[in-house]
């Protein structure tokens, strides 16, 4: 199995049942992606797979030969944070921090989807603002936060998007 994670190529020999999330956390020591539910119901495990946001807990690694994965560790560092990481810091967009890497990876994928003009369930009209607050909320709804840091994440994401 060959997998490229954060631009580093890995040769993996894993149990075929291993999910991408468990491969990252238990075998590659990339614990930024979190296990919150392990069933695609919380979004804490969100990573970018070939550029798209996915729930890594439902991805079997064995089906991802030659895939490219970006995790929170690949987005930025404390010294050089990604604009989204900066936004979350500036707006106190987290409390316990456990859902945060998933939120940020999800937001990164989401902004790319907006860039491509993808609609959401609240998109209406011919010339909609795809980054209005209701749009951001709807598009980010696949990431649960039990601390309730949602209201601070919205401006964090807006800031990162240059809005």
């Amino acid at each position, binding site marked *: 199995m060959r997998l490229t994670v954060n631009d580093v190529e890995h040769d993996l020999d894993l149990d075929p049942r291993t999910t991408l999330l*468990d491969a990252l956390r238990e075998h590659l020591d990339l614990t930024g992606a979190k*296990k919150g539910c392990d069933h695609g119901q919380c979004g804490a495990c969100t990573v970018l797979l070939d550029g798209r946001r996915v729930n890594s807990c439902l991805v079997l690694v064995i089906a991802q030969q030659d895939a490219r994965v970006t995790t929170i560790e690949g987005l930025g560092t*404390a010294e050089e944070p990604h604009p989204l990481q900066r936004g979350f810091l500036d707006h*106190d967009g987290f*409390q316990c921090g456990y859902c945060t890497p998933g939120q940020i990876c999800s937001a990164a994928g989401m902004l790319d989807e907006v860039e491509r003009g993808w609609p959401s369930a609240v998109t209406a009209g011919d010339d909609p603002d795809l980054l209005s607050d209701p749009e*951001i*909320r709807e598009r980010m709804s*696949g990431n649960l936060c*039990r*601390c309730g840091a949602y209201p601070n994440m919205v401006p964090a994401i807006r800031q990162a998007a240059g809005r």
Partner: protein
Amino acid sequence: MTATLPTAVGAPLARLEGPEKVTGTAKYAAEYRTGEVAYGWVVQSPVPRGRLNAVLADPAADTLAVLWHGNAPRLKSGDDPELDVLQSDRISYRGQAVALVVAGTLEAARRAAQELRLDITTEEHDALLRTDHPGLYTPERVNPAFPAETSSGDVDTALAAAAVAVDVTYRTPALHNNPMEPHATIARWQDGDLELHDSNQHPSGVAATVGALFGLPPERVHVITEHVGGGFGSKGTARPNAVLAALGAKVVGRPVKVVLPRQAMFSMVGHRTPTIQRIRLGAEPDGTLTAIDHQATEQTSRLFEFAEQTTVVTRHMYAAPNRRTGHRLARLDMPTPRWMRAPGEAPGMVGLECALDELAERLGIDPIELRVRNEPAVEPETGVPFTSRHYVECLRAGAERFGWAGRDPRPRQRRDGDWWIGTGMAGATYPTMAQPSTARVRALADGAFEVAIGATDLGTGARTILTQIAADALAVPVERIRIRIGDSTLPKASVAGGSSGSASWGWAVTGACRELRASGRDEATFDSSELVQHQEKDGRHAFGAHFAEVRVDAVTGEVRVSRLFGMFAAGRILNPRTARSQLLGGMIMGMGMALHEEGVLDPAMGEWVNHDLAEYHIPVHADVEDIDAAWLDEHDDRINPMGSKGIGEIGIVGSPAAIVNAVWHATGIRVRDLPVRLDKLLSLLP
């Protein structure tokens, strides 16, 4: 003195661990590399009551060990029977840990656990809480040590004579804490000592509890809890995962990691009990309350008694000459309830504040005015004064900010397209507590100070706030403070619970810093026990008021919260940045309680069957629209050296009632059975 130095306390300092959290480098319990770790998977009982006779494992299974009561190492019994895991054949609830499978990989452990065959003798069970349950009894005390019943005056006579009375029953369902980080432990034995990387709210407590089970003194158990992905009460004490991991590691001679699956978090780690609350209020035509009676029926387990203090809150809120509160419990074949954010206050204020809204409607008095007219001058039951109480100010200032004035009191008057729109409010309160803690301060060679205390930061901002408190106490900038928390070997701190962390730990930190300066030495340790134990007995509470605007879809009955605003008087706010976040978080959890959250009981199964995050709904981004919190500049120098009251829980107290009351105002429908879901509204909508 350093008069030019701005005080750190009160400044919106960003969370110190923020960069680690947003870059994914902050380590939570299950994320440490600890050599050749093996994986433990918990096997849960599929029946609510019975005896486990035998466990049959596939000999070909790829496991290192299968532990159950027939072969697990013996533990010394502690004071929490739920931690005596794998010690007895008795099954007390569905979901109880009955075996642990340990394997070299997570995948092998999970499958072997699924394939394990359990030979169980099933017994009849009883899982349904009801007010006519034959086993209902009044406990001696409710948590933590309140009388179960109080009474003064003659409630029945007063109610019979009241000009206006309400007699209503409100129900709240089982609620599940569901911190995003599951309960998790990596256990490692070294030379007879135990090391636990564990997700909890109280490292020294976990060390003592788990140590006692294994016959070890606390100092031989090292609990590391650097970052915690939320707890909300469910990680206040050691949970079975810690004991299971330690048992597994002992048997296989390797570190063992046990992470509870989300599904297990609906049974093994505690929950908020369902409540059935009967509230009776009597009033004069001018709104003066003549009688308050608040009786709660709630559940506990066969394992031990947990008595939620649901109606205690009513003892502090409003004046009335005739008053009575009480609690009755049923022991059911269900998991033991535990603490969940604002235990007692959160459900209790649903009953009280919704009933008051009903009374306001009957009286034709504005709900804010009704509360103001019944504001007590002193603690209503004991007559002792409050150290500070600015409830009325919160009501007034909150109403002003929310735009309450001019509200048409009649329900079902505002319509916008398909939406019925309404507003509602409710009061909030939470006790101000502090517990003994010890902190140590050391002057370092580079001019910085190391402040050490075995506290934890669950996302509350504790690490940051303690740094601010220390900086001011030492009169140095925050950059010169190096805070160390999250480790049982540090000076002993109280649990991160009861909204008492900042007060308890800040008290100890302040003491240590003052002592360091006074002594001129390089190190000082301060134990706050004596000061905390000699606190005066005056009423100490934070207060607040919540305001909600909801819209209810006339087509579907779906409810959305358009606006939610909370105004609080909680003493000195130590860090407005983290405080606002925490208050909003409590209010959002309150929204979940009002509209979404419910452990759905199947009495025949003896289980809450919606045990995952797809079916147990907590609010998502899209549920949270316009929300804000603010606070009054309240000074109270009688509560602790910081003058702070604690804000971790008050956000969830009252916000559910404000939303439920707003739903009534929008629709004219009183839903007295939480959560308010569309199926409870739809057939009653016009």
